[in-house]
């Protein structure tokens, strides 16, 4: 599969055409269906009912909606750009891109403050950006420069910023879950109302660390929230193969924890469910699990030829399962935000990423003494 050319994806009105396509497919075998049912079918066949009403029908005010769009757009720009830069060979090592999953990270992180802590996976750029980690420092870290978030010592898979409550992307799947139990334990001990959120994928949900953490969080009633970002693949292996029952809510139920499944491509569904779960945890209601069903736009890692995908799968995702496009459709159609306002954010995000790449490329490399420092606080 050839590498994708660089392109800035702009929101387009796709939802209507999607409906027409589905309607046409259904129209063929249906001959005896009455008009009201046909109408209902046509309307219902869309993935989600799109409110065509004017006015703010959303749980966020306009500023909040713009902030959400800004975060998602920044993540998408960042990841698309890293994809392009990686293809030139300038970025060392491995990167794992979050493009397509923005609604999940953003919808959750908008409820968090710096004192709340998250632990991420190898696919951590989106979580970092949504948690407020500096974008330029992130880019510099990916390039292995000394002004990177981790002074070039961690790389893409280990970007962290403890001052923002980001306990690191992690190269060991499932390792974040016990760490978040610890963060939640610290929060509970101090009584500061903070929560901890552990992100895992559908694959890592099979790790013992994850399952043990569900139990530990339950028995200690920790303000720990486990988010399963179910994008259907663990590297090349589909969850249909690897996960005995594709329901993480059922796994949580096994430990007495409540669980909620949402469409991870629907920012508002994620935002609302995450809000309730986080509020409950802050108030001492204990741990819970949130499953976000989603897709990922790129491969497991950059360079992954994705031969495990079905024919046309990636094109279908780009066309029909773009969470940012769907968000844009809804807010524009409601009249709360104009296309021009979104376009302005697109430009800002693009400029920020441009700046970040330039910054990263120009930044200095670590020196030889950086090799041996910061192993210990003191030795």
């Amino acid at each position, binding site marked *: 599969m050839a590498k994708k050319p660089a392109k800035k994806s702009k929101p387009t009105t796709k939802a209507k055409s999607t409906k027409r396509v589905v309607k046409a497919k259904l129209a063929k075998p249906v001959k005896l269906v009455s008009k009201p049912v046909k109408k209902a079918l046509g309307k219902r066949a869309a993935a989600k009912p799109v409110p065509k009403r004017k006015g703010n029908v959303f749980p966020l005010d306009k500023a909040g909606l713009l902030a959400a769009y800004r975060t998602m757009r920044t993540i998408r720009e960042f990841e698309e750009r890293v994809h392009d830069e990686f293809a030139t060979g300038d970025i060392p090592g491995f990167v794992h891109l979050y493009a397509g999953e923005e609604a999940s990270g953003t919808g959750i992180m908008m409820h968090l403050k710096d004192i709340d802590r998250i632990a991420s996976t190898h696919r951590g750029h989106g979580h970092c950006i949504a948690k407020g980690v500096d974008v330029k420092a992130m880019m510099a870290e990916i390039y292995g420069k000394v002004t990177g978030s981790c002074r070039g010592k961690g790389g893409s898979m280990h970007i962290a910023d*403890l001052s923002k409550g980001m*306990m690191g992307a992690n190269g060991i799947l499932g390792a974040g879950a016990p760490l978040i139990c610890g963060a939640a334990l610290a929060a509970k001990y101090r009584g500061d109302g903070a929560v901890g959120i552990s992100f895992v994928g559908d694959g890592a949900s099979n790790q013992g660390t994850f399952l043990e953490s569900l139990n530990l969080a339950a028995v200690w009633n920790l303000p720990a929230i486990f988010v399963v970002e179910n994008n259907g693949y663990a590297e090349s292996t589909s969850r249909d193969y690897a996960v005995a029952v594709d329901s993480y809510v059922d796994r949580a139920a096994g430990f007495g924890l409540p669980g909620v499944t949402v469409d991870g491509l629907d920012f508002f569904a994620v935002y609302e469910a995450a809000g309730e779960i986080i509020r409950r945890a802050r108030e001492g209601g204990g741990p819970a699990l949130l499953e976000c069903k989603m897709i990922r736009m790129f491969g497991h890692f950059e360079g992954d030829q994705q031969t495990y995908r079905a024919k046309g799968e990636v094109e279908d995702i780009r066309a029909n399962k773009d969470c940012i496009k769907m968000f844009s459709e809804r807010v524009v159609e409601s009249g709360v935000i104009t296309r021009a306002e979104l376009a302005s954010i697109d430009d800002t995000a693009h400029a920020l990423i441009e700046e970040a790449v330039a910054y990263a490329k120009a930044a200095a490399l670590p020196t030889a003494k950086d090799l041996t420092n910061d192993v210990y606080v003191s030795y």
Partner: protein
Amino acid sequence: MARKITMRQALNEALDQEMRRDPSVIVMGEDIVGGAGGGGEEDAWGGVLGVTKGLHGKYRGRLLDTPLSESAYIGAAIGAAACGMRPVAELMFLDFMGVCFDQIFNQAAKFKYMFGGKAETPVVIRAMVGAGFRAAAQHSQMLTPLFTHIPGLKVVCPSNAYDAKGLLIQSIRDNDPVIFCEHKNLYATEADVPAESYAIPFGEANVVRDGKHCSIITYGMMVNRSMDAAAELAKGGVECEVVDLRTLSPIDWDTVIDTATKTGRVVCVDEANPRCSIASDVSAMVAQECFKALKGPIQMVTAPHTPVPFSPFLEDLYIPSVASIVAAVKKTMAN
């Protein structure tokens, strides 16, 4: 004011004093209180061999019994440390490291480095080590080399009650992850231990016996055996210098090099298995740094390359004996 107490009591005292001094110190582990959720006594055990007994009553809510779930609770201790707490997590037997090693060596050990210096993980992981308890292969190992190999971890293994208290206090105050090894056969041994709080710095070996003929470099339970060997050899006029390493990472290379240079003859005694042991680590360093000073080949006395056997007769053969240490000294003296 010093008085004779056991290593078990010394460790308990160290925890007690640090918990009193610093509210961010919490202790967790399996059965460290004991009786959780049951109808019997509270504080039923105070640890499987009683090291934490009595602390639960003094520090309510700061000693947490855990489910049988090492990767979760060791990981939680590490996560809490990264968030500013000072947890002391008990791994019960260091042999159980297999189920939680990732949290220790890939997470705790590497946070400071991977995050560009912007993280601190002041966690202490206490664990029992060593053979002689008839606890068989999966509860008797000396796995210190696996941990000293990992950059970012510190490894401590006291040989007596006095060192145990001072080194545990230092471990808790230290800002790096520390693996604190407690030899289960030494819990009952006594020493003069001051009642007040004191800390012994890491990377400072203790020369427990001066001697000019041969250096025995060792740690843990092997210190006592080495002292017995030295006493026996002294009858024959061979004066051994016995060096108790106390901390294996950082290790006191200065004292190692000094003693090797002084005597020119080195015997490393290690309860671990021979391949990649502490003994081989020290021997290599001595060979590199003190080659000219050496008068004879370095000797290593270790356990054999086998798991720990159960049958007492066999286990006693497994652990390096006084006789084998004496033989090793004689061998290096022979040249």
